[in-house]
């Protein structure tokens, strides 16, 4: 049993690093199709009675390796995102077990603000957040301040933070509106802001946390989760 689980952990790790969500996926070079991916391997592990907590550790371990490969230039953004997606699929499989065990994933709300339909950055941020183990509530694009506030109110207890994105200087101002409304409703949540139009100065002005890109956003989200303990 110990030997089997070790082999399984190694395979899960390998497939996270290769960014393979399931058996249909290709690896980095276009191979491995038909071999079990993260989804099938996690299912097998759960059936074999392996604790979800240990599987999460294994996934996190793999993502550390992916992060290192990215830093050294061996991995590019597509590799990073593929791995994050594989983790996200793995977490979905684990979800029922985690809930049963009373383990709750930390939530993050993300949205492109009202008037803006640009969402590449927001989507990358969401993918990376899922890969980091967050439960992401993606409200999409052109989202009104009221809708964001409503969502935060409903899910309040588990929400770690809110990520807002805007590409246009004209729609960027709506980030300030969201924050004002959150304060009016006494919702003391940290807000991460990013997007081409946004600057550090603007973030300071509206009392938000500036993120230069999706990757910095994920690092800051992790810090927020840590602070929350």
């Amino acid at each position: 049993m110990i030997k089997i689980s070790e082999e399984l952990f190694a395979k899960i790790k390998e497939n996270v690093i290769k960014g393979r969500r399931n058996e249909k996926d290709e690896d980095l070079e276009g191979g491995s199709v038909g071999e079990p991916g993260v989804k099938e391997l996690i299912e097998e592990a759960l059936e074999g009675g392996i604790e979800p907590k240990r599987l999460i550790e294994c996934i996190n371990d793999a993502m550390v390796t992916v992060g290192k490969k990215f830093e050294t230039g061996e991995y590019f953004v597509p590799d990073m995102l593929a791995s994050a997606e594989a983790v996200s699929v793995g977490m979905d499989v684990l979800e029922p077990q985690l809930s049963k065990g009373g383990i709750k994933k930390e939530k993050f709300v993300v949205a492109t603000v009202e008037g803006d339909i640009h969402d590449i950055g927001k989507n990358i941020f969401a993918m990376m957040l899922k890969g980091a183990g967050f439960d992401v509530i993606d409200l999409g694009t052109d989202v009104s301040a009221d809708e964001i506030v409503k969502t935060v109110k409903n899910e309040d207890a588990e929400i770690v933070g809110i990520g807002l994105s805007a590409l246009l200087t004209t729609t960027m101002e709506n980030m300030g509106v969201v924050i004002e409304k959150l304060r009016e409703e006494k919702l003391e949540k940290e807000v991460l802001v990013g997007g081409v139009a946004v600057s550090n100065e603007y973030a300071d002005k509206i009392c938000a946390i500036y993120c230069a890109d999706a990757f910095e956003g994920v690092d800051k989200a992790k810090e927020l989760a840590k602070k929350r303990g």
Partner: protein
Amino acid sequence: MRKGVLVKPYERLEKAQIEKIHEASLSILRDPGIISYNREAAEIFADNGAEISSNNGYWRISIPEGLIEESVKHAPSVVKLGAREKENSLVLDGKEPRVRFGTGSEANVILDMDVEDFVSEKSGIERRFPVFQRRRGTVKDLCQSAHLCELLENVDFFLRNVNIQDDDITDDNKDVNKFYASLNNTTKHVMAGLTNLEKLDDVIRMAELVSGGRKEPIISFIACVTKSPLQFIKESTQNLIEMTKRNYPVVISVSPQGGSTAPIQEAGTVAQQNAEILAGVVLSQLVREGAPVLYGSNPLRVRMDNLDNMYGAPETNQYYIGGVQMARFYGIPCYSAAGVGDSKFPGIEATAEKMMSHLFSSLSGAQYVHYAFGLLEGTNTLSFEQLVLDDLHVGFCKSMLRGQRIEEELRDSLEDIREVMGTSHKMFTRYARKYLRAGEVIPFYPFDGDANETLIKARERKGDLLAAPVEEIPGDIKKGVFQEFDVLERIR
């Protein structure tokens, strides 16, 4: 074997226009004919039915059409060029528009680049800037250049690109040393012209020692047979005759200058150049039927302010394309040119000028594109930093020109599109990975920055490459070479 990139060629000239140029070239070779300062060449033409008139120190040759058409048929379509490393050998097929790039010229000047820190007197801002220094090329530079070109993936062959001007280099030891410096530092095919014809057999013997008896020659030669307009030079014509006798591949290289030594009109320069090259091809085939030759098209336009060469002129590119199309018409592999900058410094102007000809020469389907790396100030200066940049940009051209795979890609893409539309993020990044890993996609511009930063990054890359060990000629073979030939101690 280095396969090159098979292109669907850009045909600027229609078939009927090519035939008209061919006829014009035949007509030029009949009248006014070609002037030869070389007696043997004149005699060979006379023995084969050409009309010869003798003048003071030269002969005027009027070549009949039939002789030209008959001789050109004998020039082989396929020329095989070997290399120290078999994987680097080339098979040039004059009928197949498969493009390869290499270095060229025999640059007199090396442009050294250093990086220095400067502080603005006005604002106090600190910046790093490249500083340049010109100096005469040496045999060590040639070694370094060959080493760099060995490691740069887009360089398909090495044409010695430094004129070695060390104090101890003489007419007697220049040929052996330039070939040795090249062969010892690259395993790619090596080509050069000859300084002293008496050394031809030495160079061939040395190359044969190095190649270990490989069938395809690991070196080949350039003979700049004519001086434009239409004059066979005494020495270089003799070079062609002797190299041909030994059955070594030779480029019959001509370089008419539109506006000075050739008509400025595209049709005029292409027709004159074609006549000059055909005269050389005929001579080679009369010396030895079936001798391997390349159609050496090297035309350019001149500047109107000082009649200097203007490689970056749009017309230069028109002449290039004309040359490539004429070579293909005869089915003779084309040695063409690309990538010469008129700029004296590496960077923006040089790259703009180079990219235009890199693209057009490759688009036209030339089999053997020389000059493509590192040249500045026409062909007079070589910059290693620019050489590194050119390697990347030639890589861009190669990527752009690679064959399409519509059916296979549509099959994949349709699946991907359906898959991605089912996700919340709607990103295709995952499917880019295998193309990235297969080396088909250049991930980003690696020398990103302002003009100065780009050069500084290129210099760093050069340093990294030159830090790698050289794949030298094996020791036992070297020993044999040194026993027979005077190779300078410092490059052994």
